């Protein structure tokens, strides 16, 4: 009897997980399948699969649209933003955790206060600053306005707090300066947090739509989300060619999927290794 109850429990568990997974994966699956359909088939809900895969949709997006250029620009901008956010976030988090200075708690409160501010509230001051620096309608402006991530500071601070202070002190006694200690001692011990943050920061920069739309209006400065919208949807060259929109969207997701594939093992890793310290 107990065995049967256990089995039913397992089956139910799998059923629930399968259902949730199906709900989560369906939009993605639908996008990829629609990318292989004709324009008429996309609107026809009677069949999920295309009658014959339209690979030409992808060829058309790659060779006849500016989307690959947008993807390249977005990748470049995102990589620079990630590098800057990781560097600034790590330095601020290190100072907040390992350095003793007056107003340290106040700094943390200010940082957290900023985190609670709605993003939209920062648009106008950021816009004015960029305009004064003549950085409107430039990718540099997009990068500079994303130099610091409050979420990153918070995430790294929490991770750094798990590093025994004695290790940092030992590195200081070994002759290490703060930068060296940060990159050679603290960073390797909190690698998973760095990778998690890097990935989240990359996705957010890569997918960002609202802010780049506000500060860039030249199509040559578009990032991928803006480009997709303006070229394929907003009465662009293709009108609303849904099959092409789906093919474009599928292509856009590829860099993110590759990134996930390389970094997924780090998400499940906590802080690694044995310091011999109790924390």
């Amino acid at each position, binding site marked *: 009897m107990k065995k049967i109850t256990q089995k039913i429990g397992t089956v139910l568990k799998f059923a629930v997980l399968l259902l949730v997974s199906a709900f989560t994966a369906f939009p993605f699956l639908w996008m990829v399948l629609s990318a292989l359909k004709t324009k008429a088939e996309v609107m026809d809900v009677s069949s999920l699969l295309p009658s014959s895969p339209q690979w030409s949709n992808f060829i058309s997006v790659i060779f006849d649209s500016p989307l690959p250029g947008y993807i390249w620009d977005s990748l470049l901008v995102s990589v620079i933003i990630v590098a800057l956010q990781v560097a600034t976030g790590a330095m601020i988090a290190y100072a907040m955790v390992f350095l003793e200075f007056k107003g340290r708690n106040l700094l943390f409160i200010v940082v957290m206060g900023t985190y609670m501010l709605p993003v939209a509230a920062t648009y106008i001051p950021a816009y004015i600053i960029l305009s004064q620096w003549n950085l409107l309608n430039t990718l540099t402006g997009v990068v500079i306005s994303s130099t610091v991530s409050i979420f990153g500071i918070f995430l790294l601070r929490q991770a750094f707090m798990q590093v025994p202070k004695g290790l940092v*002190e030992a590195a200081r*006694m*070994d002759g290490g300066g703060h930068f060296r200690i940060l990159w050679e001692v603290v960073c390797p*011990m909190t690698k998973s947090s760095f990778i998690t943050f890097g990935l989240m920061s990359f996705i957010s920069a890569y997918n960002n739509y609202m802010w780049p739309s506000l500060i860039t209006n030249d199509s040559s400065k578009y990032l991928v989300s803006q480009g997709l919208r303006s070229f394929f949807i907003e009465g662009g060259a293709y009108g609303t060619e849904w099959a092409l929109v789906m093919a474009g969207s599928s292509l856009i997701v590829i860099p993110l999927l590759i990134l996930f594939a390389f970094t997924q093992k780090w998400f499940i890793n906590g802080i690694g290794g044995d310091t011999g310290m109790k924390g």
Partner: protein
Amino acid sequence: MSNIVLKHVYKRYENGFEAVKDFDLEIEDNEFIIFVGPSGCGKSTTLRMIAGLEEITEGELLIDGVRMNEVEASDRDIAMVFQNYALYPHMSVRKNIGYSLKIHHEKKEEIERKVNEAAEILGLTEVLDRKPSQLSGGQKQRVAMGRAIVRKPKVFLMDEPLSNLDAKLRGQMRVEIARLYHQLNTTFIYVTHDQTEAMTLGTRIVVMKDGVVQQVDTPERLFRYPENQFVAGFIGTPPMNFLSGNVVFEDGALGIRLGEKKAALTVEKVRNMQNKDVVGKDVDVGVRPEHVRLCAPDAEEACGTGTVDVYEMLGSEAIIYLNQDGTNEKLIVKTGTEQSFRPGDRVGYAFSLENIHVFDKVTGETITN
């Protein structure tokens, strides 16, 4: 050569708490100095101030005559072994030991040579390519020491380095540290709350309590001539017994009255008391457990009587805890194991006056040294 001077050093925290008060000490080259005292006495804080990990609120720290108060920890040429080893978990033993040399831009071959040399001394050659997580407690401890010795620093600081090891390993490592000290021929400053470590390793011991230095002396002198009741009670296992008494001057001689009994003091003790106004003073008389002998309750020599509360047989010796008659205060006796006792046995006890220490009941200071 490294001479360390702490001049009237204070450590005061923002909330006003004084962890170290007026710490004044000169450490000569090649000394093995021990800071010992109960938890919270300021010994680790003082060590960390020397290391540069803690700011000095007031006073001066000089190393080889140079003021170090504002010098960064990394620039003091001091190595430190931490209580919890503080090994870098992502680096192999080889890299852990060689890390400081890498920071100081030494050549690769030189780092390799020095790391191998340190590993040889500490018996770590076999585990050089392992990560800290693959080491035993003793090996981790050795790696932490290797990291310190590879630099050949002016001073070694050790903050309770053996406290995480089991009793057997602690004994072994204590011997290794003593050997290392003789091999390296440099200054060691060692923090511990374990008086066995303090007594066996140190050339001089600094006893601290509540941030204040109580006495600085050689292990032997600390044991024989404690300057106050705290030191007398802290050094020695089991701790010294204290009996209430008062100083009397009768029949032309200074003596001590303990309850009903009165005895004349030895010439040496009287000589030390001569310049002090002691007659009639209430005192605590300290007697070490090994100087108390048991006798029959009605024996002539008995200073007092009591009942056995606990009898601990330790093999070659036994510790007996007595409840004294009248006061019911505890008295500890260390004795041989020829005769065994049971709780409830009535015994008498005696001690000779040449082995006692007399402390002012109010100030706790000795009046017989």
